[in-house]
C-alpha cells in the first residue's frame, strides 16, 4: 500500500494530469475509481466536500483537490524530474498558460456540446483560442515546458488523446496538421513519451463513453 492515493474517473483528462505527473516523477500510488456521474462515494465527499469532484490526491491521509493545485503540490513534494522551470518569470508563464487552459475550457469544449449552427460558431471560437495557444503559448518550442515536458503540457494533454475522440463523435475537425502544424507536431511528440502513453485509456471505451456524454449534453440543451 502506497502513501499516495489518487481518486479518479477513467475518462477524465483532469485526472490524467495527476497520473502523468506522478508517473513522470516515478512516484508510486494507489488508484481508486470513483463513479462521479451516478454514485459519489462517502470517501470522495469526505476528501473533497467543497467541489465533490475528481481528481483528489491523498498523501499520508491528507487530501488535496483541484488538478492545478495538486500538480503544484506534487512538484514541491517530489522535486525530481521537475515540471516547472527554475526561473520565476518562466514559472509565471507556465502558470499563465495553465490558467488559460482552465479559463477557456468552455470555449475549447464548446464544439462537443453543441450541434448545427451553434456548433459551427463554437468550433470557430475554440479554434481561435487554440490559435492563441499555438502561436503564443507553444511558439517554436518543442514542448510548452521548453525542451522537456512540463506542467503546461500536462494541462493540454487532453488535446493529444481526448480531442480526437471527441472530434470524431461530434463530426467536426478541430485541429489538423495543415491548420495547426505546431500543435499537431506537439501532439505527436507528447503522445510518444512512455509515461504519457502507457496509462492512456482505451480508445473504443472512450468512444462509447463520450458518445453517451454528448447525447446527454445535447438533450440538456434542448430541455
Amino acid at each position: 500500500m502506497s502513501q499516495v492515493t489518487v481518486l479518479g474517473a477513467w475518462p477524465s483528462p483532469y485526472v490524467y494530469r495527476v497520473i502523468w505527473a506522478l508517473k513522470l516523477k516515478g512516484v508510486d500510488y494507489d488508484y481508486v475509481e470513483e463513479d462521479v456521474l451516478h454514485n459519489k462515494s462517502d470517501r470522495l465527499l469526505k476528501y473533497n466536500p467543497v467541489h465533490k469532484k475528481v481528481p483528489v490526491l491523498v498523501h499520508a491521509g491528507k487530501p488535496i483537490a483541484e488538478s492545478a493545485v495538486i500538480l503544484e503540490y506534487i512538484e514541491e513534494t517530489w522535486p525530481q524530474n521537475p515540471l516547472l522551470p527554475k526561473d520565476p518569470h518562466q514559472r509565471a508563464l507556465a502558470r499563465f498558460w495553465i490558467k488559460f487552459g482552465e479559463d477557456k475550457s468552455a470555449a475549447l469544449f464548446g464544439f462537443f456540446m453543441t450541434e448545427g449552427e451553434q456548433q459551427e460558431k463554437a468550433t470557430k471560437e475554440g479554434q481561435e483560442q487554440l490559435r492563441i495557444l499555438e502561436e503564443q503559448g507553444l511558439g517554436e518550442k518543442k514542448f510548452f515546458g521548453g525542451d522537456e515536458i512540463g506542467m503546461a503540457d500536462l494541462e493540454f494533454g487532453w488535446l493529444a488523446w481526448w480531442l480526437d475522440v471527441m472530434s470524431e463523435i461530434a463530426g467536426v475537425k478541430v485541429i489538423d496538421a495543415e491548420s495547426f502544424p505546431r500543435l499537431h507536431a506537439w501532439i505527436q511528440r507528447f503522445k510518444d513519451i512512455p509515461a504519457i502513453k502507457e496509462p492512456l485509456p482505451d480508445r473504443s471505451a472512450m468512444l462509447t463513453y463520450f458518445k453517451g456524454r454528448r447525447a446527454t449534453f445535447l438533450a440538456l440543451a434542448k430541455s
Partner: protein
Amino acid sequence: MNPVHKKIPVLIHNGKPVCESLIIVQYIDEVWKDKAPLLPSDPYQRAQARFWADFIDKKLYDAGRKIWTTKGEEQEAAKKEYIEILKVLEELGDKPYFMGERLGFLDIALITFYSWFHAYETLGSFSIEAECPKLISWAKRCMQKESVSKSLADPKKLCEFLVEMKKRLGVE
C-alpha cells in the same frame, strides 16, 4: 504587455510582463523571497492556500456581481449565495490570519474583496458583518496594516462607481 487577455493587473519587472493576479502574487513571493513570505513553507499548507484562493476567484466575484445587477427574488438569492461563500471561508480557522500569525497569500486573495462589501451592503440592503462577524474582524485586522489600508480602494468610491454602473447598464 497582455496580448492574450488585454486585462489588468500586469506586473512589469525588468521589462518582462507577468499577468493574472494570483500568478503575479506567487511571482512576487518567489523573486523577493527573503522578505515576508506570502505562501507557507509546508507543501500541504501551500496547497490549502492555493485551493482556497482558487475557490475565492471562482465564486466570489460572480456572486458579488449578481447582487448589484439583479433585484427582487434574484437579488435575495444572490445575497444568500454570497453570505454562504463567506461563511465557508469564515470556518477556515481561528488564527489571526488565514494561514497563521502573519498576513499571507490567502489573506491577500480575499481582502481585496472587502472594499466591495460596503457597496454590496448598500445596494443589497443587508449587513455582512451581522452574518459573518468573524470574517469582518479578520478584515479589520488586515486593515490595521498600512500596506493594506493605504492600498485598498475607498469603499464609498466603489459604491458610487457601482451606482453609476447600474445606471449605465440599465439595472434599477
